[in-house]
């Protein structure tokens, strides 16, 4: 775990850049992580996914599976991959300031 500056805020991140303390997150940090991962602007659709991931994690302690994300977030699987080509669950978790999803699905 290392401390780094994202959007001028000091945050703790793991080796892959996922925030280790979800409380340190804010929307500017989300924008900065997105930009660094090839998403220059977070649209409403991106935000819908990011908030769904984050809220589900905060409520249940685990990030949702890609199956749940596609069924329950309001954004279908095809669009999820258009929004986050490098992996929707992983990237939405990173942008949403929660740990990397550990499930296989």
């Amino acid at each position, binding site marked *: 775990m290392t401390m780094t500056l994202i959007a001028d805020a000091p945050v703790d991140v793991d080796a892959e850049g996922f925030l280790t303390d979800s409380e340190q997150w804010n929307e500017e940090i989300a924008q900065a992580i997105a930009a660094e991962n090839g998403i220059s602007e977070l649209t409403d659709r991106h935000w819908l996914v990011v908030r769904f991931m984050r809220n589900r994690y905060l409520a249940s302690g685990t990030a949702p*599976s*890609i*199956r*749940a994300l*596609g069924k329950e977030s309001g954004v*279908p*699987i*095809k669009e999820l*991959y258009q929004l986050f*080509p*490098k*992996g*929707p*669950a*992983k990237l939405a978790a990173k942008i949403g300031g929660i740990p990397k999803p550990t*499930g*296989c*699905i």
Partner: protein
Amino acid sequence: MTELLEQQKIAPSEPEMIEKVAIVISKGSLEGIYPGLIMANGARMEGIEADLFFTFFGLDAIRKDRYDKIKVATVGNPGMHLPTWVGAIPGFSALATRMMKRQMEKIDIPPIPEFIELVADSGVRLYACKATVDMFGLTIDDFVPQVEDIISVGEFYERAAGGQIIFT
């Protein structure tokens, strides 16, 4: 006197990321089909490009008339830890399949028809093996609409170029 030789130090380098996989599914049992689907889906979740190539009885996973009737192999499967004759009791395979499906649902692994749709929507391209299709006398109409094409082994290798091939 012993002389200690200093081990040559190799500069640590980042292992290269896998960027593309081509996964072959060759078996038609539940436990033969799922690993390939899980690996294909997992690849896409990591941003890795993935193709699925169905061959021999693996074709059952994409056959309209069969893909919702896939069963656990209870005979000739040492992993069942049961005498072979028990696995052969009528209805036993159906029972084992129901139990396994229930366990999978618990950990959010979808049934095969939904899984095929999920991987296809995730950008995985699905292909049927031409040799097997010809052998069984099938046509593209026998397959679910997610199947992109019937291709030969040669075409499979062409498409797999530059990636890793995984046989299941």
